[in-house]
C-alpha cells in the first residue's frame, strides 16, 4: 500500500521547526494570549513588590520593658553572647539577579487572593465603619424554563447518492456493463447531515449540566425546555452549524467537442478559466470552431453524488440462461438493457473557507452500431451488439463561480460528426436557501 508522502513531510516539518515557526506565524489569538500573560505577569510583579516592601517596614518599637531582675538580665546576656558574630551578608549570585522571576499563574493567583483577604481584614479592623464586611452578591433566582421547538431537518437529514446507470456492454448474462468508475467502492460520505443523535449531543454540550429543563429530538425537530440563557446558547450553536453546512450547489456542466489546437491556445492557469478564456470559448462556439454537445445543469447537496443522462435505452436478447428448477433443464432467453448516449455523474464537495469545489466527475459517451448481429442459438435469436464508447473520469478543484475544463478527449482530427471525442467543462455555484 502506497501512502501519500506529503503527510510525513508535513509532520516532520512541524516537529522540527515548531518553535521557530510558532514565533513567526503567531495567530491573533496567540498574540493576544501572549500579551495578556505579559500584562498579568507585570501586574503580579508590581503587586508582589509592593507587598514585599510593605512587609519590610520596621514595626513600631515595642514599649520599654520594665526593669529586669538580675537573673533575667544574666539570661539575656547569655543569649546575646550566643548570637552569631557577623550577620551573613546576603549573597546574591550574579546569575540570580538576571534570572527572570518565574510566573506561576495558579500559584500567584492563589497567593494574591490570600493577600487581598488579609488586606481587607486589616482595613476592617482599622476602620470597621468605612470598610464593612463585603457581602457576597445575591444570586438571582434561576429563570423559569421556556418551551421552544427548533426545526433542524436541514442539519439532520442525510442526503442520498444517485449514481449513474450502467453504460456499455457487460457479460452476456446480465449485460450490466461497466460502471463509470469501474466498480470501485466509493467510501466518501454523502452530504453534510449531522444525524439527530449527534446534534442532540452537541446541544446538550453547550447547556449547563445542572440547568433545569429537557431537550429531545424527534422527527427532525429539537424540543427544548430550558431557561432563556440556555436557549440563546442553543440558537448560537445551530447558527454556527448552519453556517458551515447546508446550501445547494448548482453545477453548470458543458460537454464540448474542442479541437486540440484551440485547447493548446488557452492560457490554462489551472485554477479555473479566466474571463478572457471563457469569452474565447464562447466566441469559438459561435463561429463553429468548438461545438457544444450538451449543457445540462445539475443541482446537488454538498457532497451528494448526482447524475444526468441523455440518450437511448433498448432491450436485447443478450443470451440464454438455464433453469434447473424442474426435472429437466430448460433454456430461457435472457433480456438485458443497453444504455447509450451521454451520461455524466458528479459529486461536488464544497470548501467554504477557500471558496473551492472539489468535483469528482465521470463521463461516458456511447453509440450502438446500426448493424447488430443476430444469431439463432438453441431456437432463440440472440443479439450480439457492437458499440463505440469513450469513458473518462476526473477529479479537480474549481473555484466557486468559475468554470474549468476537467478532462476528456480532445478532437485531434476533423469533425466528421461521428466521433465520440468530448471534454467536460464544469462551473459550480452555491445556492443558499433563505431562512425565515
Amino acid at each position, binding site marked *: *500500500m*502506497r501512502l501519500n508522502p*506529503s*503527510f510525513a513531510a*508535513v509532520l516532520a516539518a512541524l516537529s522540527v521547526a515548531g518553535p521557530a515557526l510558532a514565533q513567526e*506565524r503567531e495567530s491573533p489569538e*496567540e498574540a493576544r494570549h501572549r500579551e*495578556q500573560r505579559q500584562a*498579568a505577569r507585570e*501586574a*503580579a510583579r508590581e*503587586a*508582589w513588590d509592593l507587598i*514585599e516592601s*510593605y*512587609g519590610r517596614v520596621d*514595626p*513600631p518599637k515595642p514599649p520599654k520593658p520594665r526593669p529586669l531582675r538580675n537573673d533575667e538580665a544574666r539570661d539575656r546576656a547569655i543569649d546575646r553572647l550566643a548570637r552569631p558574630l557577623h550577620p551573613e551578608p546576603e549573597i546574591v549570585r550574579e546569575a540570580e539577579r538576571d534570572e527572570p522571576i518565574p510566573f506561576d499563574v495558579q500559584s*500567584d493567583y492563589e497567593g494574591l487572593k*490570600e493577600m487581598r483577604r488579609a*488586606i481587607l481584614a486589616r482595613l476592617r479592623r*482599622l476602620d470597621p465603619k468605612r470598610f464593612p464586611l463585603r457581602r457576597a452578591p445575591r444570586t438571582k433566582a434561576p429563570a423559569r424554563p421556556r418551551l421552544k421547538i427548533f426545526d433542524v431537518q436541514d442539519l439532520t437529514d442525510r442526503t442520498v447518492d444517485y449514481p449513474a446507470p450502467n453504460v456499455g*456492454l457487460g*457479460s452476456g448474462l446480465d*449485460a450490466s456493463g*461497466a460502471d463509470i*468508475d*469501474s466498480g*470501485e*467502492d466509493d467510501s466518501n*460520505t454523502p452530504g453534510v*447531515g449531522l444525524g439527530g443523535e449527534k446534534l442532540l449531543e452537541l446541544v446538550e454540550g453547550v447547556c449547563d449540566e445542572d440547568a433545569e429543563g429537557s431537550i429531545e429530538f424527534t422527527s427532525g425537530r429539537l424540543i427544548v425546555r430550558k431557561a432563556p440563557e440556555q436557549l440563546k446558547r442553543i440558537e448560537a450553536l445551530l447558527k*454556527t*452549524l448552519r453556517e*458551515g453546512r447546508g446550501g445547494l450547489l448548482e453545477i453548470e456542466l458543458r460537454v464540448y467537442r474542442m479541437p486540440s489546437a484551440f*485547447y493548446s491556445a488557452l492560457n*490554462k492557469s*489551472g485554477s479555473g478559466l479566466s474571463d478572457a478564456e471563457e469569452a474565447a470559448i464562447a466566441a469559438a462556439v459561435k463561429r463553429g470552431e468548438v461545438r457544444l454537445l450538451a449543457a445540462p445543469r445539475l443541482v446537488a447537496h454538498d457532497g451528494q453524488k448526482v447524475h444526468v443522462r441523455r440518450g437511448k435505452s433498448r432491450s436485447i436478447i443478450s*443470451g440464454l*440462461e*438455464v433453469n434447473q428448477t424442474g*426435472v*429437466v*433443464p430448460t433454456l430461457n432467453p435472457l433480456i438485458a438493457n443497453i444504455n447509450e448516449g451521454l451520461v455524466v455523474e458528479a459529486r461536488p464537495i464544497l470548501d467554504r473557507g477557500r471558496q473551492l469545489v472539489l468535483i469528482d466527475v465521470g463521463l461516458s459517451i456511447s453509440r450502438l452500431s446500426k448493424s447488430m448481429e443476430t444469431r*439463432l*442459438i*438453441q431456437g432463440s435469436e440472440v443479439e450480439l*451488439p*457492437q458499440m*463505440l*464508447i*469513450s*469513458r*473518462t*473520469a476526473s*477529479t*479537480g478543484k474549481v473555484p466557486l463561480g468559475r468554470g474549468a475544463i476537467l*478532462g476528456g478527449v480532445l478532437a*485531434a482530427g476533423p469533425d466528421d460528426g461521428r466521433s465520440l471525442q468530448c*471534454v467536460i467543462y464544469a462551473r459550480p455555484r452555491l445556492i443558499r436557501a433563505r431562512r425565515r
Partner: protein
Amino acid sequence: MTMKRLCGALAALIALSAAPAFAQEAGKQSKADEIKELQALLAKVEKAIGKIEPLIKKTYVFAQYDLRQLFFRAPDRIAPRLTIPGSNAGYRTGSGGGGGAAGGVLSFGDSDEEESYEGALLDPEKMVEIIYAETGEDHWESPASLEVSNGFLLVKQTPLLHSKVRRLLEDLRAAALRSIQLEVGFYSLSEDLKTAIAVESKTRGGALSQETLKRVDAAVARGEAKLVGHSLLSALSNQRIYLHTGAERNYVATFEEMSGGTGPVVKSVAMPIVEVLRTGLSLDIVGTVLEGDDKPRVALDARFLRSDLILLDKRKSAWGAIDIPQIKVDSVRTSARVPAGEGMLIFSSDKDKTDSKETGEQVFLIVRPRIIKTK
C-alpha cells in the same frame, strides 16, 4: 513562588495580622497613613488579580471545521481490460518451463494485481491523534472536546487552542490542495524527432524536456508531425484516473452444457457464454506530486494498452457457432519521475516487422503533467 517572595508575603501577612495596638499607639495620623498605604496595596493586588483571572478562568467556544476534502478518498479508477477475456495459456515469460504462477528473474506482473493507492491524506482517527500531539493532551479534558463526525471536526475549546488547531489544519490543507492535470498526446512523428525523443528518453529515465516538447508542438503546427489523439485528465495527487476510447462488442465465447432429468427422461441443454470484447485504447495513470528541495516533480505510474481487432472468426460446435477473436495488442506498464512542466514518453511503437509484412501505425504516447496549486 520563590523563597524570597514567600518570605516577603509572610512578612506582609504577619504585619497585617499583627495587633493594631502598635498602630493605635502611634496615633491617628499613622492610622490614616496605614489605611492609605493599604488602599494603594489593595488596588495593586486587585489589578493583578484582574489581569490573571482571564488566564485562569477559561471560556470554551464551539466551532466546526470542514475537513471533507482532507478525508476525501479519491476513488481509484482502473481502465477496462482490452484483452480477450479468459485465462492465458502457457506460462509467464521469464518464469522458466516448470510452470507455476510466479518466479524467475524477469517476471512481468499480472495486470490483475492492482496496487491500492491511498487517495486521502489521512483518516479521522489519525487527525485526532495529530491534534492531541500538537496541542498537548492535557488541554482536552472536560469541558473541552474533540471529535470527527461525517467529515467535520467538532471542537469545543478556548480561543487560543482553536487558533492552534486552525494553524495545523492550514498546514495539512496546503499539502492536500495539490492536484495534477495530465495532457496525453498520441503522435505520429518524423524520423529525426523520433530519434531525438528516443535518445532523450533513454538518458533521462523516460522524461522529455520542455525544449523537446516545444519541438514536437512546432512540428505538429507545421504539419511535419501528426497529433493522432489528445486527451486531458485531472486528478488529485496520488489518485488513479483513466480514459478508454474504442469499441465493445458481444460475442459467443463458448457453450456450457448442462443436463438433468430422472429415469428415462434426461435432457441436455447448452447455455451460450457471451463475453464482451473491448478494443481501442485505454490509459490509466497515477500521478503523485513530489515536493523536493529543487523543482517539484511528478511521479507517474502509467499503464497503456492498445488493441485492434484483426479478425472475428467462427468455429462450429455441437451447439452452434463459437466466435474466435484475434486482436493485435500493444501494452506497456511503466513509471518515471518527471519535473513539473516537462513530459514523459510512455509508449512508442515502430512498424510491426514480426510478421512477414509491416503493419500498424507508428505512435508515440507522451504525457505532460502539470501541478495545479490552488490558493
